[in-house]
């Protein structure tokens, strides 16, 4: 675990590479612009919260730790929804 912490430019494979996440322009209202692909997205409030966290650290466990303190929902449920969200992120900003 300690090992990969240093190595989190790619983190694990759950989320897109950190660099991809960090290049996204994210507005307060949830509009997301990817300057490389030129694509626009909207995220809901939760999506916005997660994207902001992911721009700092794109690893799953710390994200879930944070979400469990923030949201009123069991960890496995959060994980399930985050994994699905991650799948979309990989599709949209993965390459």
């Amino acid at each position, binding site marked *: 675990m300690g090992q990969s912490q240093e190595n989190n430019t790619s983190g694990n494979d759950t989320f897109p590479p950190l660099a991809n996440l960090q290049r996204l322009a994210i507005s307060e209202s949830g509009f997301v612009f990817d300057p490389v692909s030129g694509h626009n997205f909207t995220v809901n*409030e939760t999506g916005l919260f997660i994207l902001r966290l992911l721009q700092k650290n794109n690893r799953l466990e710390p994200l879930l730790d944070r979400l469990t303190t923030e949201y009123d929902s069991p960890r496995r449920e959060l994980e399930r929804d985050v994994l699905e969200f991650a799948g979309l992120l990989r599709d949209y900003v993965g390459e």
Partner: protein
Amino acid sequence: MSTKDNNNASEPKKKPWVKPSITPLRSGFLNKSGAARHMIWRDNIDGVPVSKLLEDFKSPLFVVSEHTLRQNSKRLRKAFSTRYPDIMFGWSYKTNYLSAVCNVLHQEGDLAEVVSQFEYEKARGLGVPGNCILFNGPNKTRAILERAVNEGAHIHIDHLDELYLLEDVAKNLGKVVDVAIRLNFDTGYTEQWSRFGFNVESGHAIDAAWRIAASDNLNLVGLHAHIGTFIMEPLAYKAQVKIMNNFMNEVETKTGCVIKYIDIGGGFASMNSLQGIYLPPEQVVPSIEQYAEAICDTLLELTHERETRECRRPTLILETGRAVVDDAEVLITSVVANKHLPDGRRAVVLDAGVNHLFTAFWYNHDVVPTRHLSGRPEETVLYGPLCMNIDVMRNSVMLPPVNVGDTLIFSPVGAYNNTQWLQFIEYRPNVVMVQENGKVSLIREAENLEIVTQQERLPEHLKNPYPKGTPRNFLTTPK
């Protein structure tokens, strides 16, 4: 006020979790009409909480509103009886023949409109006398015709073979039977249902009338036609009434019969969205009063001269189906799973599919959640539980993220579902009726293994699936 909350200040209140979503904005993709959809939800049926209904009767669940059903029937009756002096209604069994639904409508004064031996027997079984039955359909056997003649049902002859068969039946029973013939013709508005009845333009209809006039055992007293279903143009009915009135005058003059009733069938559209029609039903579906006006004004005017001849105006019979029952029933279904399709669309798997909601093949039903859903509406596909590609409940609906266990209400579903549904892969669910006093009664019990298999018979040599012992356990390596 907030002091109570502050007592728990040591543990700050956590936010409710809403599934995260990300939606690509493609040009031409922004869906304005869907924007407000997530604002609407419905948590009760006629005052009975959806949660209570599901607790008592499980999901999925069909719920009929007795109140709406009676109101629809009363409104239809009023719209027509205030515009034409002599009106009757026949409840189109095929549209929804759940016994409770039929008897609500019989109590409102409807005759039974049946199209098969089964529907005939069902009406009789409910206590409807033969002379309150309108008997349509192209497949009437000798046996059921004999019963219908004996019981005084109103038989609407569909084709020449039926005419000869019925004549024979009447002769054998030593009776003279009052009959109607079904007509088909071109109104100029709808696709012709020319496979049913006798064609007017080609002269087949007048031939049939002549043949009946020549019979010692048949007596032509009625004309029937049903020009189609979900007809959104009231002028189509105006044209229908004109053609039927002209034909009435023609047969009476030529054959000397007296036509006592004109039955114009059903076909009024309900407040539902046909696939391929993009305007909301509120904008394209005429009101019952608009249909009534087109039909009654025309018939009243055309039959005026009959009164001057001291000849009775014909009774006008309607067999309105979907417009009466469609919005009196909803389907409550639960979310089983969330998915994302490879193309990025959100998909939701529901516990009710096209096996239950057969009309999902041609309608875009209205879908609302049963609680306020926060989150941004996204384009979502709603699938049923069948492992078949065709099992699509809604191809595209704007819906905020939903959770497993959330419930959605599909409406209107009262027409042609509880009759055309299939026992396919799943058991068919309970159907309940919310009574006008707020009580809920089970009106059709969900199927179970016993019910579904009770008609099957296993030949003796097939009683055992593995008479020579079970196949090997394929998880172990064979020796």
